[in-house]
């Protein structure tokens, strides 16, 4: 499994492009692409500060639980999807190859069929992109490791109040 991930800027641009297309076609509210461990990779649309992180963490839990549930009844689709219909807003979750999760939030009057259709297309386009993500192997040119380590100690003291 992935113990570390490095996503180059060029791939993130391609992801943003795919998500923007989905947002436009399916009239979504917001979209989050996360990895299976619950970390945010990309966001489309407006969300309050801090919300995408929480959405990603909860969706990862949901998808993990749902895949386990499916396994119990003999299903093992690494591309499973499911959705929650709410009063005003609904959520559609799509597992991408057991490694990533597409989270689509849309107004409940938008037909689910439309969202499902364009989300499926987006997933097909995202799949080859995510396969290009690299395991972390080399540093960026301007990364200074010793500063980073020293900086963390300093920042830790600033992060917690007395």
């Amino acid at each position, binding site marked *: *499994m*992935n*113990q*570390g*991930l*490095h*996503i*180059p*800027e060029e791939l*993130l*641009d391609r992801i943003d492009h795919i998500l923007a297309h989905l947002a436009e076609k399916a009239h979504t509210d917001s979209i989050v692409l996360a*990895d*299976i*461990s*619950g*970390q*945010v*990779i990309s966001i489309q649309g407006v969300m309050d500060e*801090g919300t995408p*992180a*929480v959405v990603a*963490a*909860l969706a*990862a*839990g949901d998808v*993990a*639980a749902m895949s*386990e549930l499916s396994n119990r009844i003999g299903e093992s689709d690494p591309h499973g999807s499911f959705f929650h219909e709410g009063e005003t807003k609904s959520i559609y979750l799509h597992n991408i190859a057991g490694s990533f999760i597409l989270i689509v939030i849309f107004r409940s009057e938008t037909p689910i069929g439309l969202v499902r259709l364009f989300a499926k297309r987006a997933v097909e386009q995202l799949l080859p992109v995510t396969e290009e993500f690299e395991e*972390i*192997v*080399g*540093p*960026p040119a*301007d*990364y*200074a*490791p010793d*500063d*980073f*380590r020293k*900086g*963390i*100690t300093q*920042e*830790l003291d*600033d*992060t*917690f*109040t007395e």
Partner: protein
Amino acid sequence: MFINWKLREINLKIVYYGPSLSGKTSSLQYIHQRTRPDRRGELISLKTREDRTLYFDYMQFEMGEISGLKPRFNIYTVPGQVYYRGTRKLVLKGVDGIVFVADSQIRRLNENIAAINDLFEDLEELGFKPDEVPLILQCNKRDLPEIMPVLALKESLGLNGVPTFESVAVDGAGVLDGLKNIISQVVTKARGKIYSSPA
């Protein structure tokens, strides 16, 4: 670990693991309370009506930019109750560092041992090599009578070489020391990883 070069963020995941009622949620609540409000997200708890963790607790906090990268820490607790074994493993996916919260009470020794065995088994099943994930031991509930000496507890758990902290999670003593230690281990390791070149 996940590095996003576009947003210049480094995302790290730390999990509080341990037997039921050992004080994992209490530790996270204390961390949340002590984190500067402008640097922390909400504390999310998926729990039963009796306040037992059902799936996980979660919070994120971030730091200022360091050498052009903004570190973000995602902290989770697992549910300790025996029948939530399956969800415990799910929460460990993609983990960068683990705080094992043991209940120091003598009568809880067996539960501590069962939990540490589960942890190593879960990590193996998730594809981690032994000792690959930084780990610390947090011996909690040091305020109670009838507790094991730290060295004895550590030995019983087979965690002799592991950095160990005594804590009282309900009032916070020792909790941040443990967190800071695991973070610095995780960052050191992350640095090693970023710098190890393929050839």
